Structure formats: structure tokens, C-alpha cells
């Protein structure tokens, strides 16, 4: 399938779309020519061996890489048909519409309530904040556990609760897309399970892109899977190797390298 054909074909259902996306750390090309269309209200998993630029690609989707001075991005990322890297685009607006949950839970050193309300408040939320906090915490499956300790510091919660708090905080801003960067890597299996269940619920309302190093997780939760690996020319740039329906990918991968990775022969 040619890249342009794929891009045009999926424009209708695409929540976000990258065109020839290359990312450099200084002189080093970390990611090369990624063309990826993410479908709306689906969970897309990005998998691949460590160091192949999965997180870098994910962070390129809401211009998070700009916070590191040496990073340089080339190519386009289209969100609703608009290139988020165009010079007149405000990264703040981009990040408000494309939220992010990080690898390690990082609640603010504020109360549980404030953690959820803060993002909405700075973004000019006009409705009832209490209601928003309630609905967001409920949506993040955290309400029952924290309804009595809304005034306590977010840092006092357990690791899994902290991560769900971070998800609630992201939902409260009502983004279109939620990026999740290995959200369960710092959690125990039970907490991981809860987050995975939560993701299925959230997918009804949000488009979710999740980076994971755990293939079982990708297979369990995602609708589509993108497999990244290092280029074989020795330059160690991350490339998109294969992209498709998760089921297809895990049963009948097109490429040999994908099959090797999925069956655990390397990675």
C-alpha cells in the first residue's frame, strides 16, 4: 500500500495523521519518515524494542518534544487536517486537545480535587467544577476510592491510584486524543489490570494512543497496532515497520521482523 494512498483513504476516520515525520536529537536521527494514521475512538498501540523511538513519536503528537532543547522535528502531523507543526499553531492549544498520561504517575503536589480541577480551570472552564471533578474521577474509576479524601495530597495515593488520578486530570480538560506513554510500567499487575479495563471504557469517548513494551497488553487492549523497530542500515533510527489491525498483526504479521518480535525472538 502506498503511503499517500493510505493517508488519503483514511483521512475521514483519522484522528491524527503523521506525514514523513522525522525526529532528531541534535545530529542523531532518532525517528525516520513515519507515516501513521490514527483512527478516531480506537485504541492504537505502539510497540517495538526499546530505543526504537516509540515514546519520541508519541510525544511528537502533542509537541511535547519541544521541551527538550536539542530536539528537532521534521515532517507533518495533521490533527483535523491541520499541521500542528505549522508556525502559526500554538503548542498550548495542541496540548489541550491532545492530552498525555506519562510513564510514571506525576500528580501535582496539590489536593486530589485540585489535581483534577487545575487543568480545566486554567483552560477557562465555565461549568460546575465540582461536577467536573466528580465525573472525571468517576470516568477514571477512581471516585469510589477517593471521594472521602478529595482534600488530601495527590501524592498520598497509591501508585495505581495516582496514575488513575493523572488520567482523570487529563479527561477533565476534555481532549480529543489521549496519549499514554507506558502508563502501567510503574504499576503492579492488579493496578495494571484496572487501567487496562479503564482504557476500554475511555475508548468510547476518546481516541487513545498507547506506547507499551508489553505485547500482551497491546494484544489485549488495542484495536490497532503499530510496530516500530530500528532501521537495519546501522544508523539506528526508529522506523515504522508494520501497522494494522491488532488481531491480524498478532496472528498473521506481514513482515518477518514483526513476527520475530511478536514471538519473542528479539526485543
Amino acid at each position: 500500500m502506498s503511503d499517500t494512498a493510505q493517508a488519503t483513504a483514511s483521512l475521514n476516520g483519522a484522528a491524527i495523521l503523521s506525514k514523513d515525520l522525522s525526529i532528531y536529537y541534535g545530529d542523531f536521527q532518532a525517528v525516520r519518515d513515519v507515516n501513521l494514521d490514527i483512527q478516531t475512538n480506537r485504541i492504537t498501540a505502539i510497540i517495538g524494542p526499546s530505543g526504537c523511538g516509540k515514546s519520541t513519536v508519541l510525544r511528537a503528537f502533542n509537541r511535547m518534544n519541544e521541551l527538550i532543547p536539542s530536539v528537532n522535528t521534521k515532517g507533518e502531523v495533521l490533527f483535523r487536517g491541520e499541521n500542528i507543526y505549522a508556525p502559526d499553531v500554538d503548542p498550548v492549544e495542541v496540548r489541550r486537545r491532545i492530552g498525555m498520561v506519562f510513564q510514571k504517575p506525576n500528580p501535582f503536589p496539590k489536593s486530589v480535587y485540585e489535581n483534577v480541577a487545575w487543568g480545566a480551570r486554567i483552560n477557562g472552564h465555565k461549568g460546575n467544577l465540582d461536577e467536573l471533578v466528580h465525573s472525571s474521577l468517576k470516568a477514571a474509576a477512581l471516585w469510589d476510592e477517593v471521594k472521602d479524601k478529595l482534600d488530601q495530597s495527590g501524592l498520598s495515593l497509591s501508585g495505581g491510584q495516582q496514575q488513575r488520578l493523572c488520567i482523570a486530570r487529563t479527561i477533565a480538560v476534555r481532549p480529543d486524543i489521549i496519549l499514554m506513554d507506558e502508563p502501567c510500567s510503574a504499576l503492579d499487575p492488579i493496578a495494571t489490570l484496572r487501567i487496562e479495563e479503564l482504557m476500554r471504557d475511555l475508548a468510547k469517548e476518546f481516541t487513545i494512543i498507547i506506547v507499551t513494551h508489553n505485547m500482551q497488553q497491546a494484544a489485549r487492549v488495542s484495536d490497532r497496532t503499530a510496530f516500530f523497530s530500528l532501521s537495519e542500515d546501522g544508523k539506528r533510527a526508529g522506523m515504522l515497520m508494520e501497522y494494522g489491525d491488532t488481531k491480524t498483526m498478532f496472528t498473521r504479521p506481514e513482515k518477518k521482523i514483526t513476527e520475530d518480535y511478536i514471538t519473542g525472538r528479539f526485543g
Partner: protein
Amino acid sequence: MSTNNLHSSNLPGRHRLGRVWLVVFQVALVVGVVALCALLFNILNGSFGYVAVQDKVNPATLAVDGVPLEELDKDTLIQVLQANISAGLMARYEFDKPFAERDAGEVYDLILERVVAPEFVAQWSLYESLTNAGEVRATAAQEYPEARLEFRSWLNWHFLRAPQSSYPEIAGVRTAVLGSLWTISIAVLFAFPVGVAAAVYLQEYAPDNLINRIIQTNITNLAGVPSIIYGILGLAIFVRALGAFTSGIAFGVTDPATANGRTILSAGLTLGMLVLPLIIINAQEAIKAVPSSLRQASYGLGATRWETVWHHVLPNAMAGIMTGTILAISRAIGETAPLIVIGASTFIQVDPEGPFSKFTTLPIQIYQWTARPQSVFRNLAGGASLVLLGLLLTMNATAIILRNRYRRSQ
């Protein structure tokens, strides 16, 4: 698809606020830098500039047999001096230091000071001298017709070499610089070994028990005690209680001028006490930075604790300890208040001879000159400040060079 109706588009306002505050932050930084520039400029402003000089006696008239004053030999110079000043004053100079022991240069300086006696009748700042030289010249010619206008650097060779004097024309910082070097040396001799030993104890030996925690907290708090308190403590302990030792009486020194214990030794020990906590804290940091694998390797070979410390930990930490110590000393070299409290001498013309001499130091000299009401002394204070800053710069440069050399040798 989620809706965004609940959010107003408030971004332009938020960005505007962001830009306004960015300017505020930048302005704050600029103010800090401007303050530093003003500080330095102010010193330079006082250290250079025009002066109007008026001689009491024209040196040309002091020539003997056509030989100009500066080329006369010592005996002739003494005669010239004798002819122009009172016998009483001559006797006092003889008492201070017999003329037989003075060289021609010293006698020449005396003639300049007492006979020629150039006087600064007016002085202008560097800023005025540079931007408004014409007016300065006109004012000088009009108000001081007898005087000659010179562009003077208050920091000059004579200034560095000459002892203190109540005449600004010939005053210098020699005694003060020597006093500073003496007190600092004593402070280091006392505080460095004790401080490093304390740091070694706390880092390498001390078990985590109550007394060691108290020692550690205490050191942190001592570092925050105002320096003037150390002066009061020095006054009570070194000057008063231990006066017999600090005045040198216990060692057979009999100088009535220093019998009160207000000596270089007292000053040095007070400054030593003041920098002790700083040296300990810096040395602790340096020792902490030595990797523990090094210690384990040493213990693994059957070394005792002290052998490990002496052969491995200290040599590796030494660069950091040295840097920290020099930084602590640069703090001590600028200290003024504690030395005033323990009783620095206001006026000394003779070089300090040893730990039991009276003392003054460079910062004290600056303080006294600045506190004088006559503006001419402010220029001297400016020159002395330059010397002090130069001294500090040299020390900090030494610290950096030392550190780099240590790093390379490892």
C-alpha cells in the same frame, strides 16, 4: 467526539499575560546585573579622576647645587629635611626609626611628605573627568590657580607600597594588606586542619547517634551566625580570657602596645572560628563525592579505616576540599565587623612583625577611609576596594587552577 463548549477561548489573554510576566522576569534579572555594574562602576569612579595638587614648597627650590631633589644622596637629603622641619619632629623620626637605618628612598619620601607636602585641594570622579574635562579644567584654574591639575589613578605603585598616613597624598595600603595576609594565614593554619579533621570524623567515622546529629545540626547553625557575633566571642575569649597568650606575654613578648591582646593572633583565630563551619561543610561535600567503591577496594585489601581515609579518601577529596577552603577564605578576607569588635587598630604605620603585633586589615582600612567626612578619603577607599577585589580575584583564580591541576594529576 467530545465537545469543547465548556471552554472559552481564553488563550490569547493567557499568552499576553505570559509575555508580560516574561518581561517582568527579564527586567528583574537585568536589575540584578545593573546593580553589579553600578557597584563596580562606583569603585572605578572613585579610584580614578582629576585632582588639583598644590605643593607647599616647590621641589625645584629644594635642589642643592643644581642637583635636583630626587637625585641627591642620603646625607644631603637628611640635611635638606633638617633644614626644613622642626628639631622636635626630626627627633621623633629618629626615635621611630634611626636615620642610620633608613635608606635614601625613605628619607626622600619624608621630604615629600613633610617639606614639599603636596596637597590635594580638590578631586573629581572618573565620570566627571571623562565626560566633562573642560569644565573640570576651568573650575580648577579659577578656584585653585596655584594648583596643577593631574589625572590620578588612586590605585598606584606608591599606594600599594606606602604605609598608612593621615595625609591622603601619601597614604597607602601596605600595612593593611600585610595585616590581611597575616590574619588570613593564621585563620587557615587553625581552621583548615581542624575543619578537615571534623569533616573526616563526621563523614567517615561518626555513627548515627544523638551526639553526632547534634554536632551536624550545630555546624549548620554556626554557619548562619552573623559574623559580628564571632567578633564578640573573639573579644571575650581571645582578647580577654586568653589575653596572656594572644598578647604573647606568656611567650616572653613585652610590648605595652599589644598587652591588651588585640593582636594579629586574636584576629586570625577569630576569623578561623568564623570560617570553620564553612570549611567543614565544604569538606564534607567533597568527601561525600568520593565513590564508596574506592573505600570498599581499600577495605578489601585489609586496610584499616584510617589507612583508607589517608591513602584513598583524602587524596581524592583534596581538590574539592581545597576549592571549598579557598572560597571560605575569600569570605574571611572581606570580613570587617568581627575585627572591629575585637579591636583593630585605627592607625598603624609600621609593618606587622608577627602574630603578636597590632593589626589592621584591608577591609578595615576601607571602612575607616569611607567613614571619614572628607571626600578625598573616599577616593582612597575606592582604590583600596580595587586592591581587595584584586586580592579576591587572585584567590578565586588560584582555587580554579588548583582544582584543575588536581583533576589532571589523578
